[in-house]
């Protein structure tokens, strides 16, 4: 367990708690605390990842601990971008708790990633492709998580507008149009990243002489996910599926993302390294 990651964890926990309190209480001072501690945690987290990279001479995205930590970092980065673009603090109360949990698991997990960073991954032929493959996919996951959150917020808000009974949460959520914009943008970004991630994976695998496709569960789920989000994008573009149906698709899509992410661990296959 690294002391630096513990400080990062503490910053994220503080941020998550204040984000939730701000959501409940709607106090601007709390939002400032959230942003401050997220920024602080993010800088330290970045530093921690960089030292891991330079220290071990290996890209810090391998094994469960590293993956979770990297995923948390990615989520914070995407959250930051959305806050910057749309100024919707409400997102923090959904994203930051997950970030804190991921960081917590990462900080208590031990994996012997460096031991299993095997010949394949470090094969000089295409070694540089592997980190790109994993990084792209991690960012795609983060984007899809945001789509998922935006979809949930959309469904909550839409339901209340239809039923005309407003809970306290209603006043804290951004407008339907804003949520819809967030979902549309992030689903596009996420799908592009997913496409590139899958492509780099294929190139990497074939350059090692392992072929493009292995029928492994992760690959199948990834293909399904890819298809589903493509459909979602097409439907959104053709305008037939705005609003609630698109939101439901964002939720279902994320379930597939989870299967893709954890698929290997449960079902085994080519993508098992550790």
């Amino acid at each position, binding site marked *: 367990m690294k002391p630096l990651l513990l400080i990062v964890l503490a910053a994220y926990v503080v941020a998550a708690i204040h984000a939730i309190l701000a959501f409940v209480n709607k106090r601007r001072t709390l939002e400032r605390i959230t942003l401050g501690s997220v920024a602080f945690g993010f800088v330290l987290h970045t530093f921690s990842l960089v030292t891991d990279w330079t220290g071990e001479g290996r890209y810090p995205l391998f094994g469960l601990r590293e993956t979770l930590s990297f995923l948390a970092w990615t989520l914070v980065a995407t959250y930051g971008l959305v806050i910057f673009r749309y100024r919707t603090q409400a997102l923090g109360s959904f994203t930051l708790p997950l970030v804190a949990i991921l960081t917590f698991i990462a900080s208590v997990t031990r994996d012997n990633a460096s031991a299993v960073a095997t010949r394949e991954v470090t094969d000089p032929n295409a070694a540089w492709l592997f980190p790109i493959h994993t990084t792209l996919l991690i960012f795609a996951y983060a984007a899809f998580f945001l789509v998922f959150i935006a979809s949930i917020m959309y469904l909550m808000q839409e339901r209340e507008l239809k039923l005309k009974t407003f809970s306290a949460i209603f006043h804290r959520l951004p407008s339907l*149009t804003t949520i819809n914009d967030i979902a549309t943008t992030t689903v596009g970004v996420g799908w592009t990243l997913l496409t590139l991630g899958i492509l780099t994976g294929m190139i990497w695998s074939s350059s090692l002489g392992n072929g493009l496709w292995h029928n492994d569960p992760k690959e199948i789920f990834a293909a399904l996910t890819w298809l589903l989000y493509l459909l979602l994008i097409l439907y959104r573009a053709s305008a037939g599926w*705005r609003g609630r149906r698109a939101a439901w698709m964002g939720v279902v899509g994320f379930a597939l993302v989870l299967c893709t992410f954890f698929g290997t661990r449960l079902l085994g296959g080519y993508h098992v390294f550790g």
Partner: protein
Amino acid sequence: MSIVLVGLNHKTAPVAVRERLAFTDEACAEGLRALVDGKVVNEGLIFSTCNRVEVVAATIGESEADGRKRITDFLSQSRCVAQEDFQSHLYSHTDDAAVRHIFRVASSLDSMVVGEPQVLGQVRRAYSLAVSAGTAGRVLNRLVHQALHVAKRVRTETGIAASAVSISYMAVELGRKIFGNLKGRTVLLVGAGEMAELSARHLVSAGVARVLVANRTSETAQKLASQFNGEAVEFSRLPAYLAEADIVICSTGASEYLITPAIAREALEMRRNRPAFFIDISVPRNIDPEVGNIPNLFIFDIDDLESVIASNIREREREAERAELIVDSEVMQFQQALRTLDLGPTLGALRQKLQDIARSELARQRQRLGELTPEQERAIESLLLSTVNKISHPIIHRLKSSYDAGENADVQTWRDIFGLESGDGGQGSGDG
């Protein structure tokens, strides 16, 4: 010194009484000069709006009754109204209670509609009148500034003004919930009712770009449309224009449904499923409630709006409870600030007096000391001043503790011993 507030508001007095006591801006300036006489009242402020008339005074004496009587007399004389005509409607508060009342008024906790935003501007206006009449001094300056600060805190830290409480403003609030920014949106008014007009006015000031008006009588439509630089459209072509409008407000006297699910569905298709927001404030309703089942279409009838307003009012009341806590803590802070505010000049004068004595004695004896280097000269002066400070220190300490304990007689004794004037520049030498 004490702060006295006497007044009446919409809860204690009918408009027939309030209007007789109301001050115009000119009357206010004139009245303030009459109120502040330097004998009983040292500083004054008149707060006169359509819902309340209140006079705030910083009095010289400590007697609550004197201050109250002075203000009541003033109101009666200045407004030429017999005291018995309004006396029973009056309330009065002193010191902490007065401070709390002013904070609550500025924060809109005492308003007819809790959380309404106008009152803050009215407080500012009343204060600037007092400033230009020269009747706002140290106490009222401090009081008003803190009241504005409290109002700002309440506004940002509680949701007291977060949600709409009128039907006409509901269109803006719900519109924002659906569309986010209302800039560049189009609103279609079906029927030219008064409520629809008021809603349109709010929507336009929130950024709505285009106003369409459909009415059975085209003249009425023209007239209303011209108010918003809008367009009057043919009533018979309503379904076509429906597709162009993001927000539709229906308020006709029609006895049948003007917008049926079929019409709405078609309009939404033409909008490529972009969300639409229909408000039906007509009774009987003009929009078939079935329309509400269409996805991406949100419809609110008069009952829906009323029930949202009722829940918003409840929300405001909950938030008002939190606001009261803020007011409480600010009243305590003001209390503390006021103490030093009052004692400060006394302490300053005491130090000054003792230092002056030391300096003048030094000047008197200076010749006898002969030639001195600048260091020696400075040493003598600092020796004298530090002696003086050492002597005055226990006195100041005693003064402060007496003051904090509220033993004003004790404070006054020390003032008398050193011949110091109390708080405010010459007028109140200890007849308190």
